[in-house]
């Protein structure tokens, strides 16, 4: 099967969905003539024309709201917000409207809309362009938030998001766009994923590492390193932040007895806090050590490379936290330092 980049998988999936359903159309800043800030929509204006690939003015609140209104009348807009940082300008439309319209009016209108947007730091973009605020949306009933980590997942989940009748925030990551992976089939034949299911992407017995998006990839890398040292780490890729697949998390931790959460957002009140609380409630009697969280340092992310690198979670920081946790369980396999 094809080995493609995350970017290519997204682009080809958008194209396949537009060919499949006339009601699917794209909106966003610079997605047409410019072909996307990250080139996810490359060639699509040429192929589908301006009716289906709409360049918008710089007006996040306006065009996200317009997408919601169009979705209420049965279209399936896929909106690109250039980075998740700019989604804050559309917060009212996403939180007070997209998430509320189905419930607030007693189920009379749904909002089948997708907002695609990348998070991620590490590109020296400074404090306002390097945040991971998916938490804001994961907090809100009525929204769905998915965060695929591989090209295959990206394709299957984008299909699911487009065909879903609810507003879905589809979280991408700047650091993942160029990563490669196998697709299980030709893009048009890939089965849509089921939103709301986490995956055990690597089975293990000694400790559970839980991550999503970029940090799910980092977790896999760390598990590989640990395997060479004789440690069997299980990796859970959350894939969906809302709904959260609590059963898969708790089942895994009950088997391994310890857990580390790897997240790209800030620690305080972050995604990891919810995961840790979930483990506490669902696997308290099985825990051999406190749940650890690896997260961004609590600062506005600095520009200087030395500071930025120090602030961001990495394979090294995750490895340290995993080793600490294993030691705390008293079942560490590595020699004491």
């Amino acid at each position: 099967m094809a080995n493609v980049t995350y970017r290519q998988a997204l682009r080809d999936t958008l194209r396949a969905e537009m060919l499949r359903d006339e009601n699917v159309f794209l909106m966003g800043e610079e997605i047409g003539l410019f072909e996307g800030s990250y080139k996810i929509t490359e060639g699509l204006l040429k192929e589908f024309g301006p009716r289906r690939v709409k360049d918008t003015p710089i007006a996040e609140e306006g065009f996200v709201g317009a997408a919601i209104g169009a979705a209420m009348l049965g279209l399936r807009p896929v909106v690109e917000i250039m980075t998740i940082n700019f989604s804050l300008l559309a917060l009212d439309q996403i939180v007070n409207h997209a998430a509320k319209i189905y419930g607030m009016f007693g189920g009379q209108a749904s909002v089948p809309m997708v907002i695609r947007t990348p998070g991620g730091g590490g590109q020296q973009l400074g404090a306002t362009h390097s945040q991971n605020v998916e938490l804001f949306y994961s907090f809100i009933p009525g929204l769905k938030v998915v965060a695929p980590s591989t090209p295959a997942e990206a394709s299957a989940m984008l299909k699911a998001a487009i065909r879903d009748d609810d507003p879905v925030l589809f979280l991408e990551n700047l650091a993942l766009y160029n990563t490669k992976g196998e697709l299980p089939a030709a893009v048009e034949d890939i089965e849509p994923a089921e939103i709301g299911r986490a995956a055990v992407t690597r089975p293990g017995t000694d400790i559970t590492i839980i991550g999503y998006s970029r940090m799910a990839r980092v977790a896999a890398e760390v598990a590989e390193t640990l395997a060479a040292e004789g440690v069997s780490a299980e990796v859970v890729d959350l894939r969906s932040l809302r709904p959260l697949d609590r059963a898969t998390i708790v089942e895994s931790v009950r088997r391994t007895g310890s857990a580390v959460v790897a997240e790209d957002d800030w620690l305080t009140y972050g995604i990891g806090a919810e995961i840790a609380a979930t483990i506490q409630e669902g696997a308290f009697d099985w825990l051999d050590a406190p749940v650890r969280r690896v997260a961004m340092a609590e600062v506005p992310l600095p520009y200087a490379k030395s500071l930025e690198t120090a602030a961001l979670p990495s394979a090294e920081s995750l490895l340290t936290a995993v080793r600490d946790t294993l030691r705390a369980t008293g079942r560490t396999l590595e020699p004491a330092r």
Partner: protein
Amino acid sequence: MTETVQAAPARNRRTSGTKTSRRGGAAKPAADAETLVGYYRQMLLIRRFEERAARAYTEAKIGGYCHLNLGEEATVVGLMAALRPADYLFTNYREHGYALSKGISADRVMAELYGRSTGVSKGWGGSMHLFDAEARLLGGYGIVGGQVPLAAGAALAVSYKGGDEVVMCHMGDGTTAIGAFHESLNIAGLWDLPVVFVVINNGLGMGTTVEHSAAEPELYRRGAAYRMESARVDGTDVLAVRDAARTAVERARAESKPYLLETTSPRLKGHSVVDPARYRSKEEKEALKAADPLARMALELEEAGILSHDDRDKLDAEVTAEIDAAAAFADQSPSPDVSTLFDYTYATPVPGELRRLPADPVFGS
């Protein structure tokens, strides 16, 4: 009758504050007696409905916020008379009258205010969030300006599908200061969307006057920034409103062009039921009585020999009975069952959705 601004830049006129243009010496728009009495009846229905809602609020039958259309009746009926049944309406939280005039029964509107399962939004929305898919009332919205981008998007969908419906979008005068208003007008202008934005200017955003919040208090002139045709009309004159709205709606339908219409009318009471409007002077309150559109139309119909005092009383009794029945219907309707609490979070069911009440544990029952 109406002040109109073409797409060209506005002339540098002296502003007249919120003083509205009246029909003045211009020829009165034509309407037959039956139509006029029909409009009057709708206006009266709104008046009696709102009075009843205010009473029910003080009786604690209605909770939350409750904003009334008192003083706005001619605007409501005039605007709705310009729409076809298939046209879509987005409005704000001061909306009971629009729901009634869009053809929804007083029973179902009152039941929504009472929070009952027979309400238009099944008790999920309340006074600020009326919605009826069949009547194409696509929502009252409680966040100032929230409905404006949605309406532009609905118009985009109409245009995408090649339909001939028009979207009308209401907002208060205060909304013209919010970013969403400007972003949406820009988008509607840019994309030639069939949407009519209506600024219902009652002179006050809660207690803040238009002059206090708008650098250009002739609000309809804001259309010029988006090369959008716009006009201001006396919102206490039902026929003037209807005709101005028809011009806007039919232009949107025929040419797929947006339009900005401003109506001016008094808000006879406070911002909401609980607001005693102490910020208004005695003189202002006195002047409001003279501006009452319902009293004005009653007098006009009587003078024209169309509706006598007695006939008016009969009509009033009929309308009052209808409202009494609506209140009784609402009162007797069941509250939504708690078992339906999780029915409307998601349209597509998903695994992992937590369906727990506050004291329930996350795991186990």
